[in-house]
């Protein structure tokens, strides 16, 4: 079935600072996100994954390249109406539950802050009802609305952060490392909640994280980003089992599984940037298999292709 393209990112570049100390955080990135899928973006700290999320949210200005949301260009200068549209339809969940809620405001204001901005409610009682509905949909009790954030645990605060986005009825949610600051036992709760919301409300996620095992569980497609460039992108199991790019393989070998027998003798592949000779031939963004893209020079591309021929996909 023809998937509807919700978000399209073309040769996106984001840089900070000027002239001498100019730092390119995102360097020519391409990917699409289809409606109803969870798109995983995984990379180490400083790889530019958060910058991409913030560029889509229009928090960071973009240097070059385009971001299309439902066919309309939303980066750079846009008119007021479209800006309103973007604010309503694209929302963000933040990493640290302790820092992403205003400690001096009640949960009632925090959750309905978006409503106040976009006037998406008829009257006070309608707003109250919307807040309660949002709290219930994330598994919190309506009477929590009159409490302050510091009265809640990490997991509960993260659910308030999610309720805050749901009240706007968005289509795309950018989740910037939503669970890495949570306790292990709480992570599963939030992951399940996000999956339930996706199926019941038809949401689409851009799931940004550095924890590969979480990304594998939750994402439909995954992109691996290194130093501002996406090096590989594929359907989740295809990437985890048939990774071709050395950086992706290095990352995958570093995942530690909670299984002492396999863990004790696991070999860890160290990625060495100098193995590429990109000064000779610049890398291109090429499709090595249907829906499986990789950043490689022609010579490398052939080598990866040969390595891939024998592999077939086994569904774990």
């Amino acid at each position, binding site marked *: 079935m023809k998937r509807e393209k919700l978000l399209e990112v073309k040769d996106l570049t984001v840089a900070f600072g000027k002239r001498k100390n100019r730092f390119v955080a995102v360097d020519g990135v391409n990917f699409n996100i289809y409606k109803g899928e969870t798109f995983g973006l995984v990379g180490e700290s400083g790889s530019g994954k958060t910058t991409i999320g913030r560029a889509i949210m229009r928090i960071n200005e973009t240097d070059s390249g385009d971001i299309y949301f439902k066919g309309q260009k939303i980066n750079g200068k846009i008119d007021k109406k479209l800006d309103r549209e973007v604010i309503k339809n694209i929302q963000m969940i933040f990493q640290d539950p302790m820092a992403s809620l205003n400690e001096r405001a009640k949960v009632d204001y925090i959750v309905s802050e978006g409503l106040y901005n976009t006037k998406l409610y008829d009257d006070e009682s309608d707003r109250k009802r919307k807040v309660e509905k949002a709290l219930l949909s994330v598994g919190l009790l309506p009477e929590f609305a009159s409490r302050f954030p510091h009265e809640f645990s990490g997991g509960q605060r993260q659910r308030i952060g999610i309720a805050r986005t749901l009240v706007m009825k968005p289509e795309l949610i950018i989740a910037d490392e939503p669970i890495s600051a949570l306790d292990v036992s709480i992570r599963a709760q939030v992951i399940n909640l996000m999956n339930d919301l996706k199926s019941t409300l038809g949401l689409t996620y851009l799931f940004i994280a550095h924890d590969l095992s979480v990304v594998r569980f939750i994402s439909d497609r995954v992109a691996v980003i290194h130093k501002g460039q996406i090096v590989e992108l594929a359907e989740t199991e295809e990437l985890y089992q048939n990774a071709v790019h050395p950086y992706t393989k290095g990352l995958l070998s570093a995942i530690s599984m909670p299984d*002492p027998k396999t863990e004790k003798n696991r070999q860890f592949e160290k990625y060495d940037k100098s193995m590429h000779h990109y000064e000779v031939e610049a890398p291109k963004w090429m499709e090595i298999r249907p829906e499986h893209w990789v950043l490689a020079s022609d010579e490398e591309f052939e080598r990866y292709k040969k390595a891939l021929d024998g592999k077939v996909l086994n569904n774990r």
Partner: protein
Amino acid sequence: MNSDEMIKQDEKHLPDQIKKAMPILTIENLVVKFNLRGRSLSAIREASLSLYKGESLAIVGESGSGKSVFTKSLMGLLDANGWVDSGTIQYKTYDLAQFKKEKDWLKIRGKEIAMVFQDPMTSLNPLKTIGKQVREAVVKHQGLKGREATNAVYDILENVGIDAPRKRYNQYPFEFSGGMRQRVVIAIAVACKPEILICDEPTTALDVTIQAQIMELIGELQSKYGLTVIYITHDLGVVAHVADRVAVMYAGDIVEIGLSEEIFYDPRHPYTSALLASLPQLGIKGEPLYAIKGTPPNLFKKVEGDAFAFRNEKALKIDFVKRPPYFKISETHYAKTWLMDERAPKVDKPKIIELLNERSAK
């Protein structure tokens, strides 16, 4: 008969790998208390543990479980409002639980027990060169001076995998990456020539590729210097990689302890198996993950019976009334849960644990 007698009494059946080693540290019924906003709370509730020479023990627990407080009490680094209330910490001829004055603690800090902290960004003095900060430990504990001390620092920096130690000696922390700084912190700890090395979440603040390197480094140093390592973490993947034995902590008490194979393949305490089952690595796509309900308890609640009872769907009535003692499962495997009592109904573990079990049997 309280729990530790049970452990001591059965020591003769320990598997050979542990039997050769003697316990160099024995903690019995340790209670650590804090006063917070006018009330005194117990962060550690009668936890007991024996540490054997040369082994690598992992302490697993979430925030509020008290795992950091537990190890800080071994070095007298408790915050100002915390104190060791009762219990004993037997290390060689000392009882660390009785240590009060700085003079006592200086007998073991560094020389006997050294520590590596979580956040490399803030553990080093930003205004002092790397070389000087390592040298302080070398001069203090290896009694070297001048040229000798400097060379010793070069060697240690090399041992922890820092390139061009001569150049790096005069550089400052802000010129190092997170991974390199953690190597310096480890160099400082090893330079103290300790018996026991406590690593308080040493890899949590690092990226996964650097994490693997640091874990490997600690393993090498352990065998090279004959260290006994206590590894504190909440990441069960890291535990599987580094630990010989695992102690699971919850709300200030060690609820289960055993060899890592026993804990991972045959978890007995409901919290341990729930923790394993909720890991995304073991999750089956499309199906919801096994999630533990509720939130980890904070210290304000006075705990009656088994602290995990509130969050355990299959809790027994007794769990809310009486605190479970240690039940012996094997020579090295103990768990504090009434489920082990033969009067308790049989409870099957989450499906995912069975899966993990079969895969390991192959």
